[in-house]
């Protein structure tokens, strides 16, 4: 039961954190709750759909289909998060001003919403399809273990969801004039982490060289499977033994998105 809880928790954590952060980042945008729910719902439907065809995907491209598919989903999610941040860099100030007036949620943020709904859907889809495959395995196990595994999975999902709520609640305590700076950085780091994962899956499929691997090894003092390591992985893309290529992609994404944000900031919307 505990193992099942842990698996589902790990898979749901990143998606839950993305949703919690994005919910805080889009606070003044009217109707954002519906859009975020829509994104998550689309992600779940997509996850089931992907799980159904995952085996065929996996056999494509000479067995590298799974990695290529993940790489595409990750790249799209990075692009969407970057797009959201650039939009926010341009409109952040007016949003902060309007958010300060209590009950005001009037900013039209179609672009920001499109980007985040897609990013949420993609993250739920990617993490969710693995969970669906795990749950399918449970369904075929013996009746006695099925119940405990199902309970464990639900507990894991609840814990993942709770982490998302927790980070959202924490972000709401940030003064509103600084909120979008904080969420901007968090989304930037999420995007960079996904760029690092993008490199990892392509290395696994031998489509990118690993260069120095590992570039560093911090597994003795913060293992990947420790509580903090898991959290930092979901939030910042932490890994105890990353290859140089991953770090390169991480830093490149960070620099590119940050530069695009700065550019947008210096040319605010008219």
């Amino acid at each position, binding site marked *: 039961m505990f*193992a099942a809880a842990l*698996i589902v928790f790990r898979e749901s954590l990143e998606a839950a954190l993305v949703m919690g952060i994005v919910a805080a980042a889009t606070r003044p945008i009217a109707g954002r709750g519906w859009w975020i729910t829509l994104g998550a719902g689309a992600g779940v439907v997509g996850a089931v759909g992907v799980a159904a065809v*995952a085996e065929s995907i*996996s056999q494509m491209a000479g067995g590298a289909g799974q990695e290529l598919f993940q790489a595409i989903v990750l790249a799209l999610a990075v692009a969407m998060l970057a797009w959201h941040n650039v939009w926010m860099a341009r409109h952040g100030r007016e949003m902060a001003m309007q958010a300060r007036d209590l009950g005001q949620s009037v900013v039209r943020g179609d672009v920001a919403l499109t980007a985040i709904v897609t990013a949420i859907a993609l993250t739920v889809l990617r993490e969710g399809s*693995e969970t669906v495959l*795990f749950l399918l395995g449970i369904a075929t196990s013996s009746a006695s273990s099925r119940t405990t595994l199902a309970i464990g999975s639900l507990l894991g999902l609840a814990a993942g969801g709770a982490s998302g709520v927790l980070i959202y609640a924490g972000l709401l305590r940030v003064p509103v004039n600084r909120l979008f700076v904080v969420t901007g950085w968090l989304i930037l780091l999420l995007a960079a982490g996904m760029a690092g994962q993008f490199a990892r899956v392509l*290395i696994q499929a031998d489509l*990118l060289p690993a260069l120095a*691997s590992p570039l560093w090894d911090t597994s003795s003092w913060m*293992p990947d499977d420790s509580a903090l390591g898991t959290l930092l992985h979901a939030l910042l893309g932490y890994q105890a033994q990353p290859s140089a290529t991953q770090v390169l992609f991480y830093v490149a994404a960070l620099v590119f998105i940050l530069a695009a944000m700065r550019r947008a900031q210096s040319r605010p919307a008219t």
Partner: protein
Amino acid sequence: MKMLFALLSLSSSVALLAADPEYTIQLREHRFTPSELKVPAGAKIKLIIDNQDTTAEEFDSFALNREKIVFPNSKAIVFIGPLKPGRYEFVGEFNQSSAKGALIAE
């Protein structure tokens, strides 16, 4: 983008020049055979995971920095390394109590 393309073509041409040594581990009743596999250190290897079970498994290793779903009754390819000499543990994440194994690079 141009750099990515250059890297992609570089890695595929390297792959063409010298085929990476292949190793296969079987997965049956949620156990790996062999559970310990010796592989050369300092060389990239092609690991084939042959899942003969009727459920999907996730080949997972933090030490190897690899993670891949292996479908029922099918094989999955994972490229690994080059590794430094040492022991690298892996698990089948969906059945961790029995599906355990390690690569020993030397």
